[in-house]
């Protein structure tokens, strides 16, 4: 073994696929749900409450043989705004990106307004992001603002 410090991996490496790192520990299961990993058939590994220098604790997800479209991954930015996305090809890092908060949010968030039509009829809420810093979402239907502390996921 050479002198280089070998970092012990808490989650095994994957040959091909996507690693999603720096997920806030408490957002882990939201991310799984948003990306619909529950229905995914390839190997998915995840760990949470790992130590993180930057954030205290963090979660990590490794999805083998799957590369996501940026729009799909950007959906998780609402719960994991600092997540990094690492594409692995043949055990090597092929590309590293960070998530971005999209201009529009469809399907994944519920409108917080109990009197909104989306909570009464068979129609899904969709939103325009009016503030990317504080995360404020304007409902297309009732025009009310859903903010971080009132946000609920489907």
């Amino acid at each position, binding site marked *: 073994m050479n002198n280089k410090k070998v970092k012990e991996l808490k989650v095994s490496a994957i040959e091909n696929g996507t690693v999603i790192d720096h997920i806030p520990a408490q957002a882990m299961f939201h991310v799984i749900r948003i990306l619909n990993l529950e229905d995914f058939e390839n190997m998915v590994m995840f760990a949470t409450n790992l130590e993180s220098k930057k954030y205290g604790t963090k979660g990590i997800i490794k999805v083998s043989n799957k590369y996501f479209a940026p729009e799909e991954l950007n959906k998780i930015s609402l719960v994991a705004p600092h997540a990094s996305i690492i594409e692995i090809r043949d055990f090597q890092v092929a590309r590293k990106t960070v998530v971005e908060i999209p201009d529009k949010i469809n399907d994944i968030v519920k*409108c917080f307004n109990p*009197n909104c*039509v989306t909570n009464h009829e*068979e129609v899904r809420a969709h939103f325009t992001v009016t503030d990317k810093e504080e995360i404020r979402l*304007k409902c*297309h239907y009732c*025009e009310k603002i859903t903010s971080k502390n009132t946000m609920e996921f489907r």
Partner: protein
Amino acid sequence: MKHKSLVSINDYTKEEQLRILELAQEFEKNPVQRIMEDYVVASLFFEPSTRTRLSFESAASRLGAKIVGFSEASNTSVKKGESLRDTILTVANYSDLIVMRNPIEGSARFASEISSVPIINAGDGANQHPTQTLLDLYSIQKTQGTLDNLHVALVGDLKYGRTVHSLVIALCNFNTTFHLVSPVELKLPRSVKMHIKEKNLAYHQYTELEDVLPKSDVLYMTRIQKERFSDPLEYEKIKNSYIFHADMLPDTKENFRVMHPLPRVNEIHTSVDKSPKAYYFEQALNGVFVRQALMTLILGIK
């Protein structure tokens, strides 16, 4: 504008709004014309709103249209559990235009997306009531001779009052200076102020009604509702502080007019009613002409 639903005031451009006001003037001169004889207007009021419903139905009747519909949901299939989607899809088969009032917010937008005929939103809960805004604009234009560069004071519940929100947004197209008078708890929300800031317009906030009287061209009064206060003592403290009284008229400009979306409770004292500066009842009448203009433009008759 043909076949274009009106859900929020912002659905129509400034030019389209001005076109409606211009046509409303023609209807004011000649409100009885048989130009809608071949049309059926559905008037779906899922909650009672006598004033708005009668104004729409009167507007349509005077143009010869047939009106179908209901004035409250209790005697309809809605009571049996029918979804709004099914009601709209069915009624769209029977009519050329649907006027809808519904307590569920966003219901009008949803209806406009599934309906084959245009929808006019006659109020969706606390969200939007765009024909009120059009008649407010018409009333301001008619009394002031212009919509541009006016000083408009909005008084009362600026936080929850949807008519205030839509009117502020609409006036942002006309270089208005806003004077906002409300208790601290009921200040205009940030989401509405954003529109004023985007246009770089001036706005001033006050807690005393007296402070704005000498500056204002239009005083737009609204009702403060008790249920808006978590602390009933707070309500008791402020409930009488936003009442416009005839004593205050001498402090106002010659062109000054008092408006109110109605119903009023006590926020404009009846002593004001006889003054030529009281405009709230004429304001309600203007709703008929504005709605005639809107319906005929949407149907492509005008």
